[in-house]
């Protein structure tokens, strides 16, 4: 039998210590959730990739563009129902540190190939009608206070204008995405606008297409479309690589390199630090309770229930700290997403992350509680009563 009131009374005895331990646990679990969410964000695009999209890119380099002439040829490939061009614009707003992705794209086809895209403000018609119009991701719009109807001047680092001025985009809509395959930080504008500006000499920069995204018609196998596309340009002039959307996203994860390893090492350090802290608290309170344990045992409480009292104290302490940390992580989610969205689009504290954090909390509780609990169980009544505080 375990007297539960004793568990709570013991914990409440040193209120400040109790609060500090719970808070440090909360902080550590919060940090674990954040770190884990960074890794989840990196992989978000992979997990949410659409099966019916094929991405065609240069096999040589991310930064090499394919000739415009590839577009019509790709459209003729069996099973391709529509196609959208994406071209990296590489500009910034006011200062190079205000970095987010901008793409020149085909406005009409964009909505067809990416059905997850929807507008929260503005209209599709307005975007299609004006060549200078752009769509801005809701996160970027919020970050820079951009609204529909505003002009959004972007300085083209990769595509500088001849007179040195900024590119003047008119915000026609604010978009969100139902899935993580599109992030909500991007600016999309008309491919025609870029092309005409290059032709007229108003701006300069590399001509061509960064990636083609093909929508595969129902009933066709994406794999077959891919191999046909690969074969089509096997002998150049620019060799291409057709992949599924998930592979395309996965390549970025691979390119970012050691981030998951770095994040898990940090997480390991956090776990060790917090385990030591909680263990310290548990040992301290167990030492102070030595006499109480003697009294309990003398009263006839079994070794098992004494063990239970002590381990339960650790679990209650950790449970509170962990729950607080998880709550903190979930509550800070929108703020964190905004702060690091341009670097980690799709930052989200998911259910598996929370479950892992919960598991980590229980593990800490167990590891921190087991030593003092075992020690208390083995303690003889006489030694316990004789103990000096």
């Amino acid at each position, binding site marked *: 039998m375990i007297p539960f009131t004793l568990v709570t009374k013991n914990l409440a005895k*040193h209120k400040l*210590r109790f609060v500090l331990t719970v808070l440090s646990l909360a902080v*550590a679990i919060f*940090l674990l959730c954040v770190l884990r969410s960074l890794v989840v964000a990196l992989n978000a695009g992979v997990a949410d990739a659409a099966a019916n999209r094929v991405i065609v890119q240069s096999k040589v*380099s991310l930064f090499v563009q394919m000739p415009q002439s590839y577009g019509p040829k790709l459209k003729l490939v069996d099973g391709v129902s529509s196609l959208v061009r994406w071209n990296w614009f590489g500009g910034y707003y006011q200062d190079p540190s205000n970095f987010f992705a901008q793409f020149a794209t085909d406005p009409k086809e964009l909505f067809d190939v990416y059905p997850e895209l929807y507008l929260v403000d503005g209209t599709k018609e307005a975007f299609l009608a004006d060549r200078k119009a752009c769509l801005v991701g809701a996160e970027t719009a919020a970050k820079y206070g951009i609204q529909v109807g505003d002009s959004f001047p972007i300085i083209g680092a990769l595509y500088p204008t001849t007179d040195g001025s900024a590119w003047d985009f008119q915000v026609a809509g604010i978009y969100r995405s139902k899935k993580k395959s599109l992030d909500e930080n991007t600016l999309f504008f008309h491919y025609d606008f870029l092309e005409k500006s290059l032709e007229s000499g108003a701006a300069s920069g590399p001509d061509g297409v960064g990636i083609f995204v093909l929508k595969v018609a129902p009933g066709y196998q994406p794999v077959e479309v891919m191999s046909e596309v690969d074969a089509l340009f096997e002998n150049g002039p620019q060799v291409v690589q057709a992949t599924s959307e998930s592979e395309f996203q996965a390549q970025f994860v691979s390119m*970012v390199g050691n981030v998951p390893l770095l994040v898990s090492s940090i997480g390991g*350090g956090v776990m060790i630090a917090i385990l030591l*802290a909680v263990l310290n608290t548990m040992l*301290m309170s167990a030492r102070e309770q030595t006499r109480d344990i003697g009294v309990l045992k003398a009263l006839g409480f079994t070794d098992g229930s004494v063990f239970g009292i002590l381990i339960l104290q650790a679990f209650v302490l950790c449970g509170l700290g962990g729950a607080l940390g998880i709550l903190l992580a979930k509550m800070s989610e929108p703020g964190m997403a905004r702060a690091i969205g341009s670097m980690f689009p799709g930052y989200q504290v998911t259910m598996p992350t929370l479950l892992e954090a919960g598991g980590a909390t229980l593990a800490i509780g167990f590891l921190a509680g087991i030593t003092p609990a075992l020690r208390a169980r083995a303690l003889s009544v006489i030694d316990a009563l004789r103990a000096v505080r």
Partner: protein
Amino acid sequence: MALVPLSYNLRSLAVRWSATLLTVFGIGATVAVLAGVLALQQGFETLFTESGRDDVIVFLRQGATNEGDSVFSLERAQILMKSLPEVETPEDGQPLIGAEMYLAVRRTKTDGGETNVPIRGVSQRSFDIYGDGVRIVEGRRLASGADEVVVGKKLVERIRDCQVGRTLTLNTTPFQVVGVFDSDGPFASEIWGDRDRIGEALERPVLNRVVAILKPGTDLADLAARMDADPQVPCKVLTEKEYLTSQTSALSFVLRGLGFFLALVMGTAAVFTATNTMLAALASRTYEIGILLALGYRPYAIFLSFLFEALVLGLAGGAVGCVLALPLNGVDTGAMNFQTFTEVAFAFRVTPQVMVTAVVFALILGLVGGTWPALRAASMRPTEAMRRV
């Protein structure tokens, strides 16, 4: 006025050795994580800044922030190179100026997965300009006009087909690996080939930057101002050192931000732990404090005494943290350079600066964690303290 002997604190720490050790290691783990992140940042930054030379001048297209953004047509590069009387001309009559092509190409890592490796198309002039900065350590230099490449030393183990005798295929053209070169800077993570051959293979008839060595005594500021306003090929002029330093800003910013965030969050947890330990120390020594006060020690002496004890805990934690982080020194890693989106290999560097930061951080943790318990100790009354057992 008399201070409490320091040996009193040291002995107290030794008597409560288990709590002391747990606290020290808890702080140590926190400090080690911070030191690790800082060592990563230092390694990355020194790779770039320390290898850059002041006498090598880099010309970029106006508005470009890195070589990838900077583009010169072949024609404009020729005009630029001929318009510079300031360039040093050695006895052979060939001015020390050369144009380079730069592109991040897709390569497969030896352990699978893709990464971006910079490929640099150079002329023999580049080798003359960098001199000892680029040393062939295996095989030979590439021959002009041949389909040959030399690879940076850091790539040999990491990237597939980067050993002497192997063949690297770029687009549709096979290139023979004829040598391995070493460099103290980021060049060691690059592939170098003949500029014209690489340009042709990649179907990229453009150049990305021009490098030169100027005649001694040339005023760089004057040159920069003149080139900025140049009617034919306006460009940005900076030293190699300035260029490389500017390349570190994005990743350094991220790593510093991460370090700061971790320090703040984990530091909070560590402060709570230190406070707990000191409060427990206080609780079990109330009687002793009463005696000290009764002996005539002033409250401020008690305050300083307990603060000293907390600082010792912090210092020991800092030392443990440094010892834990030290094995990282020299460990090779790779990170994404966000500016060019390429992976650079470098080693962690646990510099004296990192260690000092770590120890100071640990001392601050001890100080902040110890202030409240020390204040509490100092505000005790002798009679009450001695009565409380």
